C-alpha cells in the first residue's frame, strides 16, 4: 500500500508538471488550480508514504519517478528528443526503482 501511494505521489508530480505546461498555452484560473492540485497531492501522498517507508529511499524514488515520468511525458506528448542517452537514463531509473522495491 505504501509503495502504491509512493507511485501515486510520483504520478501526481508528473501531472503537476503537465499542467504547468498546459498553463503556458492556456492561461486561466482553472489552470492554476490544476497545478496546485497536482503538487499538493504529490506532497500529500509523499508524506503518507514516508510514514512507513525510510525517508531517504522514499525521496529518491519520488524524484526518480518524477524525472522519468516528466521525460516520458515529454517524449510522448510534446515531441521532445528521444535520443538513446535519454532512453538509457529513463531505463536506469525504472530498473533501480524496481530493484529497490524487490530488495526492500
Amino acid at each position, binding site marked *: 500500500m505504501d509503495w502504491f501511494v509512493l507511485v501515486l505521489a510520483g504520478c501526481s*508530480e508528473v501531472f*503537476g*508538471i*503537465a499542467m*504547468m*505546461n498546459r498553463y*503556458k498555452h492556456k492561461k486561466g484560473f482553472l489552470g492554476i488550480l490544476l*497545478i496546485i492540485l497536482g*503538487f499538493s497531492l504529490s*506532497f500529500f501522498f*509523499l*508524506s503518507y508514504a*514516508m*510514514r512507513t517507508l*525510510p*525517508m*531517504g*529511499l*522514499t*525521496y*529518491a*524514488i519520488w*524524484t*526518480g519517478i*518524477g*524525472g*522519468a515520468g*516528466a*521525460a516520458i*511525458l*515529454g517524449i510522448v506528448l*510534446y515531441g*521532445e*528528443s528521444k*535520443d538513446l*542517452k*535519454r532512453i*538509457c*537514463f*529513463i*531505463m*536506469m*531509473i525504472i*530498473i*533501480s*526503482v524496481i*530493484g*529497490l522495491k524487490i*530488495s*526492500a
Partner: protein
Amino acid sequence: MNIYWFSVLIATLFEVLWVIGLKYASSISEWIATIICIALTFVLMIFAQKKLPIGTTYTIFTGIGTIGTILVDVIFFGEELKAIKVFFILILILGVMGLKLVTTNNDIELEKGKL
C-alpha cells in the same frame, strides 16, 4: 561562488529540511515550517534559473538533495544501509542526474516545475 549558485545550495538545504518535515512533523508549527521550506525551495530555484544553465542547476540540485536526504536519514535517524540498496540508489541518482543533464533547453519548458 556567485549569488545564483549560492541560492541553489541553500535551496538544496531547504529541500532536505522539508523532506525531514514531511516524515517527522507532528505539530501545527512544524507543518507550517515544512510548508515554508517547500515554498523557499521553489523561490530560490526560480531565482537561480534566471542566470544559470538549467540542466546543470537541476542536476546538482537533485544529486545533492538525494544524497543529502539519505545521509541525514543514516546519521540522524539511524536508518540502515544495505549494499544492495546503496547500489540501486546510486543507479537511480545517476539516471536522474543524467536525464537532467541531457535535457536541452528546448525540453526545459516541461521541466520548469520539477522541484
